[in-house]
């Protein structure tokens, strides 16, 4: 399946709604440290905003809630894979994105026949100040060779300036948090991303 090339990651339904109408077609809702009831409300709100604007919603981590709220897509880390009921997700038609950092995690992800595989952090990131080893562009190319038709999502430290290079290295989709969310004019910044993505296609 073809995924949109630009993939913002935001932490509220309000943010998802903000992206409606900008041309974004794929967005991830990543929320941490929030009570269950509020989570459900956020997921529901995000799903509604996406449905109204023709965007695909990916829910980070909370696969159970995503399943209940009938969201399109779930993004899981390797730790989440231990407890997620992938079969149940598949039965209902929820798509699966899996994050990877090394070969072993890639093998594990591929065994699940995911709908995308994410590799990160490509560059040093601001959000997670811990100095985990950046993957770099060469790893992106290696991952693309191994993934074949499965979409490759690059994530971590991506900026408008780095975007063309990331696509050239083999990423099908570029995920972004800080460069858009912390920009003084996010709507304008996201349109710039979409323009570069179009040119790189």
């Amino acid at each position, binding site marked *: 399946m073809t995924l949109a090339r630009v993939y913002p990651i935001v932490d509220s339904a309000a943010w998802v709604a903000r992206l409606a109408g900008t041309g974004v077609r794929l967005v991830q809702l990543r929320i941490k440290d929030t009570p269950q009831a509020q989570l459900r409300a956020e997921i529901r709100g995000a799903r509604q905003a996406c449905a109204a604007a023709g965007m695909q919603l990916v829910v980070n981590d909370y696969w159970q809630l995503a399943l209940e709220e009938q969201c399109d897509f779930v993004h899981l880390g390797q730790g989440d894979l231990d407890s997620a009921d992938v079969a149940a997700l598949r039965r209902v038609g929820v798509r699966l994105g899996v994050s990877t*950092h090394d070969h072993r995690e890639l093998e594990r992800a591929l065994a699940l026949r995911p709908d995308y595989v994410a590799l990160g952090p490509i560059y040093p990131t601001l959000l997670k100040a*811990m100095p985990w080893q950046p*993957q770099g562009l060469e790893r992106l190319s290696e991952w693309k060779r191994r993934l074949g038709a499965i979409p490759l999502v690059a994530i971590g430290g991506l900026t408008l300036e780095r975007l063309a290079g990331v696509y050239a290295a083999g990423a099908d989709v570029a995920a972004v948090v800080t460069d858009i969310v912390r920009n003084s004019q996010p709507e304008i910044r996201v349109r710039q991303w979409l323009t570069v993505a179009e040119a790189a296609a």
Partner: protein
Amino acid sequence: MLELYGATLRSRLLLGTARYSSPAVLKEAVAAARTEVVTVSLRREAGAERAGQGFWSLIRELGVRVLPNTAGCHSVKEAVTTAHMAREVFATPWVKLEVIGEDDTLQPDVFGLAEAARILCGEGFEVFPYTTEDLVVAERLLTAGCRVLMPWGAPIGSGRGLNNLFGLGALRAHFPHVPLIIDAGLGVPSHAAHAMELGFDAVLVNTAVAQAGDPVAMAAAFAQAVEAGYAARAAGPIEPKDFGTPSTPVIGQAFLG
């Protein structure tokens, strides 16, 4: 059993925690290595982020001993101050003392190292000095109060293995009763096995595991290699010869000519 400053350890593989691609990979590699000691460091932390706190929780959950390092220190003063800070934060007198002298090879400044060791041993630290195979430096470090030495295999992160076999062999022979831990530059498990076969007491590995294609599998492989090398040494290996000696007995061989 390995004894380091009174601590008894089953595992002779120590692991560094740097250069992993994610916390999950680090955790699994530590488990696969069956290590009981990991090295850690101190770095600047911004007030808003709690990355250091997160990392510290992760390490505590692993239930391993920490060996804080003075990585990046180029002077005696920096190293001593860093050691003080580490002792407070990690609540241990253990310190892997690094005083770096040269930025291409990251080799120790052995003069600064000996001086810093003298100061820190005097203050009650249990110092693990990252040193070369130089016998005179080793003597100075032991005189200063170190009871363990960590000679390099090769430059940090180089993956070259045991660079100076003769020097390392001489070091082992000169200090038969000092725990010697090969630290830095190992690339593959056979390097670790070789170090153990030479009689070294343990190895410390970081980049070779963290940067492997599959760090968890590599960690397990290193653990096996360290055990194999240690067991082989204890089992009394044959001496190498320059000529061949038949293994199959000559007596009773048929004459078929």
